[in-house]
């Protein structure tokens, strides 16, 4: 063999060897790749296991959601993850958590939640890989390249769960695309986290039920403690209405022992036969309305003692709405009832007396005055004829003055009793009209030499008690006339009204004989009379003061002997409520 042949042979062998080495290293590389992938999947499974252990300990949906979002990012190595748990019965009730998205996917952002919801609605299939075009609805918050999306609805427990794991090339270019092979693992993982969530929700429901049960039982303890101690009688019946328990107060008042009435119907024990139907209706209405119903009814003890009772019936229902017990609370209101009856009797007596008094007032004004007035008329007639005999004429004048005084007294007592007895009756009153009428009335009996005048500033219409104000003004205008100067033609009674201020101010001004400084402070006193020359009862101004107080106003007097008197009324301006 030549050297050349030898070399060529060696070269060929070397090449073959080189080829084999190359092949081997490719195989080696493939094996390394597989090992890495297996390592990463193992790691993923390890992390999934860790997640499950932690997630099972979660006590609330929000704790679960934030743990899950965090874990999805960790396990699947995506940039971001979103979790949305919705309650099916209440669209406003949801739990949302995000990881890696920062403020873009804040739980406070209702728009994000809506976008996730609509995305979930578009992809109802359990697991999908979504690409850029399918993620447009989330683009306003963050532009996304691809995403793993899981969506499920549990109608038994009433919740839906949406998990989205996604990448954004714009924000984090180093993250690769989501690989299709990951979909299977993601699917397994999501099934796992769904069952964990279901577990949490079930646990919560049970604990809420347990809590309410605990509360109810402590409530029941408290109630039975109260029922034992209370002075009121308590009967507890079972669902069929039969007595289960009564308290000590019941036993004492009604003379029954629990043992002898257990299992009986309460109405057959303490209610008279003719009222049993009534109480049955009450119980029925309490049960159907699910509310306490009450009624006043007579009850009877074992030895037939009668009590006036106030019965309150409260139905008690179980969690599921079935009637458990009925609780009857019985108060003995016999004393109250007797008191009420005597009060009612007194009230009706009072009403009778009141109406008799009304009649009396009316009778006095008619029947008592009528004969008096006919005496006056007759005396007037005699006076007209007996102009020749001065002595008789004088007697007649004296008799007339006595009649007038008696009549004045009757009138003033009537005014006083009207003011004291009747309520205020507020209406719109035209003061101009009212005062004019008073003037006209006087003009029939007054010599024309007294001049009457009325000045009104502002509106003449006010809201007040017409008859009371009229009584006052009649009195005051009458006084102005009565106490005029006897020896002049310049007598004037002027009424001024000012309704422009906070108070209505009315003044009655005369230029008559006036009141001395000494007498002025006493003119509003009962039976006080400043002048014995002019007939009077001493009641007029006292009554005016009583009435003005009823009207919440004030009355005051300014006067100077020999110059005249001004009586000023101030009453609060009212607005008519009608």
């Amino acid at each position, binding site marked *: 063999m030549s050297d050349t042949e030898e070399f060529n042979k060696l070269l060929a062998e070397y090449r073959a060897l080189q080829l084999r080495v190359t092949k081997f290293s490719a195989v080696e590389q493939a094996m390394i790749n597989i090992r890495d992938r297996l390592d990463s999947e193992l790691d993923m499974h390890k992390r999934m296991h860790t997640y499950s252990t932690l997630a099972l300990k979660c006590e609330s949906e929000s704790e679960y959601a934030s743990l899950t979002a965090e874990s999805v990012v960790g396990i699947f190595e995506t940039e971001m993850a979103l979790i949305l748990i919705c309650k099916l019965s209440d669209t406003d009730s949801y739990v949302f958590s995000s990881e890696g998205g920062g403020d873009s996917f804040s739980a406070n952002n209702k728009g994000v939640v809506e976008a996730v919801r609509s995305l979930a609605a578009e992809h109802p299939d359990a697991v999908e890989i979504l690409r850029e075009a399918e993620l447009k609805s989330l683009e306003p918050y963050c532009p996304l390249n691809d995403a793993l999306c899981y969506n499920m609805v549990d109608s038994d427990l009433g919740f839906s769960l949406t998990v989205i794991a996604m990448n954004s090339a714009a924000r984090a270019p180093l993250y690769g695309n989501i690989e299709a092979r990951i979909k299977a693992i993601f699917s397994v993982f999501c099934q796992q986290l769904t069952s964990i969530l279901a577990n949490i929700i079930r646990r919560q429901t049970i604990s809420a039920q347990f809590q309410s049960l605990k509360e109810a039982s402590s409530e029941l303890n408290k109630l039975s403690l109260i029922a034992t101690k209370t002075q009121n009688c308590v009967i507890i019946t079972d669902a069929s209405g039969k007595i289960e328990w009564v308290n000590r107060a019941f036993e004492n008042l009604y003379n029954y022992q629990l043992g002898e009435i257990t299992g009986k119907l309460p109405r057959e024990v303490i209610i008279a036969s003719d009222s049993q139907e009534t109480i049955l209706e009450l119980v029925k209405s309490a049960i159907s309305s699910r509310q306490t119903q009450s009624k006043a009814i007579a009850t009877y003890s074992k030895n037939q003692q009668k009590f006036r009772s106030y019965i309150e019936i409260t139905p008690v229902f179980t969690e599921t709405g079935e009637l458990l017990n009925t609780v009857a609370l019985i108060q003995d209101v016999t004393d109250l009832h007797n008191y009420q009856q005597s009060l009612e009797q007194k009230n009706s007596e009072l009403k009778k007396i009141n109406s008799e008094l009304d009649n009396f007032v009316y009778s006095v*004004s008619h029947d008592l005055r009528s004969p008096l*007035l*006919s005496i006056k*008329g007759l005396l007037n*007639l005699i006076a*007209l004829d007996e102009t020749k005999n001065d002595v008789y004429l004088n007697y007649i004048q004296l008799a007339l003055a006595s009649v007038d005084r008696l009549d004045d007294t009757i*009138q003033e007592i009537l005014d006083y009793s009207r003011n004291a007895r009747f309520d205020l009756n507020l209406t719109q009153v035209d003061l101009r*009209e009212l005062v004019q009428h008073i003037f006209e009335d006087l003009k*029939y009996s007054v010599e024309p030499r007294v001049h009457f005048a009325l000045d009104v500033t502002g509106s003449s219409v006010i809201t007040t008690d017409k008859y009371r104000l009229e009584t006052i003004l009649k009195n005051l205008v009458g006084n102005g006339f009565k106490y005029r100067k006897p020896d002049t033609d310049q007598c004037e009674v002027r009424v001024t009204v000012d309704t422009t201020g906070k108070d209505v101010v009315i003044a009655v001004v005369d230029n008559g004989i006036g009141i001395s400084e000494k007498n002025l402070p006493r003119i509003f006193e009962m039976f006080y009379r400043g002048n014995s020359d002019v007939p009077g009862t001493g009641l007029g101004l006292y009554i005016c003061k009583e009435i003005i107080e009823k009207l919440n106003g004030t009355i005051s007097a300014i006067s100077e002997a020999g110059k005249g008197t001004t009586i000023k009324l101030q009453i609060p301006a009212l607005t008519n409520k009608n």
Partner: protein
Amino acid sequence: MKKNSVLLIDDDKTFNIINRALIQKIDPEIEVIEFNSSTIGLDYLGEKLLTDQQLPDFLFLDIRMPEMTGFEFLGILTSQFSHNKLNAMRIFILTSSLDVKDKERARETGVVEGFINKPLELQVLDNLFKVRSNVLGGKTE
């Protein structure tokens, strides 16, 4: 010249006597017709109105009377006859009532010219005969 006439209706005869005396003191020629029953008074006026006879010039009417009150009396008149017809007669309430509500009711009838407290006095009567007033503001001429 036609004689004036006045109709007095009051269950209390004394007042009718007083009023008749006063009227005739002013003018003895005035004819005075008096009734102490409101129903008989109503019959009298009703017949005059139905047969279109001359009405009295004045009516003095009491309020509180047995059988029929003054207001019931006026109620029947105003429901049967027009105000225009009744206006031929000047109607005055003459009463011992101090109740302001009675005065209000008198005004509301629309036919009462005045509300006079008893007893009627000569001067008041004289004024009435001389001047036609509109004291209650309810009378339409």
